[in-house]
């Protein structure tokens, strides 16, 4: 599904990713862990196509197609989704209006007509129920005055609406209380299928109790330095990252 080979990326001439390899197959959940500054969020941004980063070497392939040259919007049309760590506010644009626009723009790019209003409403209703989102919430301005939990729930709501092939969740657990965490994780689990893949970026084991990964990778200094199964996450929780750094 997603194939990252020898990825080098830098921002303002500073290299952050230094030869990263990652292979994610359909139906899999991968967790990426690592200390602050390891390059976790950079990886998410680079895959999503943020222009501030320059890819100097290596490649990113989605279903066998190289997406390096595509803009962020085009990657989204191909099925890449990023749940932001810090979702931005867009005053005056409602949650509903925003997601409608996103869906119809994506459909347009795929040569489809706008989604009929009735189908859209039905889908919004269904997906908002999945994430226990109140209908009043849908008419609020996007992320404006949202609590941390509301922002993250809204990110996963958008994921549910857009049905991406690869979803990258960048620290979706940060700022969530335990109830919100359960709702968000539950939502992600329900959206998981044999046709898509999820990459969970997190500092903590906590989220992985709910979204159980098939593989866990440790990112350090722009490279994946250790990979394992979900037990690796438990080990990291117990021992921290120093033992891995020491082993390098």
């Amino acid at each position, binding site marked *: 599904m997603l194939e990252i080979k020898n990825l080098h990326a830098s921002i303002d001439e500073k290299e952050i990713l230094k030869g990263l390899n990652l292979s994610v197959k359909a139906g899999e959940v991968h967790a990426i862990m690592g200390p602050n500054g390891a390059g976790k969020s950079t990886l998410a941004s680079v895959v999503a196509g943020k222009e501030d980063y320059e890819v100097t070497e290596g490649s990113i392939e989605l279903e066998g197609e190289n997406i390096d040259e595509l803009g962020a919007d085009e990657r989204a049309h191909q099925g890449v989704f990023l749940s932001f760590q810090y979702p931005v506010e*867009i005053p*005056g644009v409602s949650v509903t209006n925003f997601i409608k626009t996103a869906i119809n723009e994506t459909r347009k790019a795929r040569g489809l007509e706008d989604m009929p209003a009735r189908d859209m409403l039905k889908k919004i209703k269904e997906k908002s129920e999945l994430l226990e989102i109140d209908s009043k919430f849908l008419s609020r301005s996007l992320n404006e005055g949202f609590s941390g939990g509301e922002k993250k729930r809204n990110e996963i709501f958008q994921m549910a609406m857009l049905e991406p092939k690869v979803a990258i969740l960048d620290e979706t657990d940060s700022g969530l209380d335990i109830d919100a965490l359960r709702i968000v994780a539950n939502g992600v689990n329900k959206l998981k299928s044999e046709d898509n893949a999820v990459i969970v970026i997190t500092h903590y084991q906590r989220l992985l109790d709910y979204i159980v990964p098939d593989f866990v990778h440790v990112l350090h200094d722009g490279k994946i330095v250790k990979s394992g199964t979900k037990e690796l996450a438990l080990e990291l929780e117990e021992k921290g990252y120093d033992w891995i750094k020491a082993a390098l």
Partner: protein
Amino acid sequence: MSKYTEDDLKKELETKEYEYGFYTDIESDTFPTGLNEDIIRAISAKKEEPEWLTNWRLDAYRKWAQMEEPDWANVNYQKPDFQAISYYSAPKKVDPNKTLDDVDPELLKTFEKLGISLDEQKKLSGVAVDVVVDSVSVATTFKKTLAEKGIIFCSISEAIKDHPELVKKYLGTVVTKTDNYYAALNSAVFTDGSFCYIPKGVRCPMELSTYFRINQSGTGQFERTLVVADESSYVSYLEGCTAPSRDENQLHAAVVELIAMDDAEIKYSTVQNWFPGDAAGKGGVYNFVTKRGLCEKNAKISWTQVETGSAVTWKYPSCVLKGNNSVGEFYSIAVTNNYQQADTGTKMIHLGKNTKSTIISKGISAGKSQNSYRGLVQISPRAENARNFSQCDSLLMGNECGAHTFPYIEAKNKTAQIEHEATTSKIGEDQIFYCNQRGIDTEKAIALIVNGFSKEVLNKLPMEFAVEAQKLLEISLEGSVG
């Protein structure tokens, strides 16, 4: 919003240049250029005006000749040469009886291109239209329906002929003929415009709409609008403006006067997209307009404007809150792109007790444009418990444009409550990236953000206008972020 489809938008966006920039070739009857007392007499004679009006014009002209063109606004432009303008231009083939069948088919095509339909469709949507092409009102629809309610809606020339007592009573009472340089010029040379009178206790059953358009090259358009809402009446009035693109500057100096008597309400909405000049700043309309409304007891006047056009704008729709408990509102979106300059805002003059005013101004600047809000809130010594709330938000796109706010507050009564809020923001790259990541391209993202920013004002527009305004915002900002 159901009528507004993606396809419409797509079509609009494909038109990269100013989309109303076509010129209709109709024979017109144009005066030689220049301004003097003979020209004014000729205009007045051509329009078969009564003597009092000829003298009124001449008086305005003499005062104007003594006045200086104002230069306090935050705009720079080459001052118009008033002797190089022709002050009268009328399409030749207009039948005085003014039925649609008599209208030049070329002109009807122009209306079609503008998207103004004077046909059944429009009737169904309940809009009465008075169209001013250059200086003469060409067709007024719905006169009959309105007449049954005693509503008068016609060109000001007709009003001068058919209702001279009303015109004489109210003309120049809110904006006096010597109010300012351009108002004086307008008073001297105005050629047409609209007149509207709503009788006591009548609620106008439809939106009244006027469409202005400057067609003939080298002509200035000086239209005059007078709206009188008698006691306890209500009217919503829409005004739309376009001009073909030309590389010389065209002058537009209009005067609008509103009178809301006791318990009356007037909503006045404008969507203005006069030609803004090309991307290099050449050409465009100079829009120097005086708009003011007078509120008697318990009356209310709302100005709503969406300004996307003109090379230079100088415009301050104002309310004189004379009666106790009267209310004034000003909702504005002003967009400037490329080399456009706008100095616009409002004046709220609180004279009566318990008067209230609200100002919501949204300025959007892009390209190398300069966008200024200038507003005055004045509380007179007698205006007990006056209240004002002002909010001025500016949105910047790119690094070469400017947004300026000049709020003036003069409170001479200590019971006054005045609030002023101002924000300046920039469309952030993180906002664009967020939208991109959701599959929304950059142009569409900007349109979305701008619409969100302008929503409070767009919501104040009648539905049909809101859709048009939204499209205009998108078109006028197209290509402004690279």
